[in-house]
């Protein structure tokens, strides 16, 4: 043990040798004052190794902000709103288009009726001329 103590004193000992010294220091079989002093130092080191803080640090608790807690609800609501608006607008445009078509078809029908009415008027005028001529001849 004396050799290990000397190596320790000179800063040449290994960690394993230092561990041996601490084990020896628990019950040193010696009366030599120098060795007893080393043993006492070793016991102090062993105790110092066990020293720990009273208050340990803990990582901060992660608090989720209110807007993040409802993030997915907000996203879903936004998507629903956009989709709803799109569908509603699309539907209105479809209805408008249908009305336009109906209007155009009605207009075409009226034009057709008008055309036929004009033809009928011409025929009536012709009939009137015919009637007058007949009356003159057969008076």
């Amino acid at each position, binding site marked *: 043990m004396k050799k290990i103590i000397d190596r320790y004193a*000179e*800063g040449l000992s290994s960690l394993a040798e*230092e561990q041996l010294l601490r084990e020896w220091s628990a019950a040193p079989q010696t009366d030599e004052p120098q060795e007893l*002093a080393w043993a*006492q130092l070793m*016991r102090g080191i*062993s105790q*110092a190794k066990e*020293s*720990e803080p009273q208050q340990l640090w803990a990582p901060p608790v992660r608090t989720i902000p209110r807007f993040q807690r409802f993030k997915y609800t907000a996203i879903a609501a936004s998507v629903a709103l956009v989709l709803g608006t799109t569908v509603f607008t699309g539907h209105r445009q479809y209805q408008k288009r249908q009305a336009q078509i109906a209007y155009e078809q009605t207009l075409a029908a009226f034009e057709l009726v008008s055309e036929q009415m004009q033809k009928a008027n011409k025929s009536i005028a012709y009939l009137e001329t015919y009637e007058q001529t007949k009356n003159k001849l057969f008076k």
Partner: protein
Amino acid sequence: MNTSTGFSEHQFKSEVMIHQALVYRLAKGLLVSKEEAEDVVQEMMTRLWMQKDSLVQVDNKRAFIAKMTKNYCLDRLKSKQAQRVSWDTVHEKQAIWSPEQPMEAKESVEMIYRCLAQLPETQRLLFQLRDIEGMEYQEIEEITGMQPVAIRVALSRVRKTLKNHVLQQNQHGLTK
């Protein structure tokens, strides 16, 4: 070298938070104050937490944390904020060792810290790193930036000083 990008809370707990006692002991040895050492633990862990993403690139977390603590404590000692107190003042103010510890061990630890407080910061640091934390010389070189021979010489000096202090105390006790 680790090349992944993140450092999870779980990793932080298992690789960084386990060194809180090291930070505490190192700070206590350098600042000679239990209260200040408690503050240093909180401060160091908060700083490490803030930069946890960059820790993934650090291979030796223990050496990194010890170096960071050493630098912080030395800065604190230099600054006005650090009101360095003598061991006697600390001893009077605080119950550093719990009453259930054996009296002889308690006296030995007190004696060590009382003597350490009188020594230069470098010697205190080396004694803490090697004898209290059980670090290899290579790790101590990394933390202190000192040459191996200089480390051994300084350690030899502090060990002999401490032993002589214990011896003197014992002789003084016998002649009392």
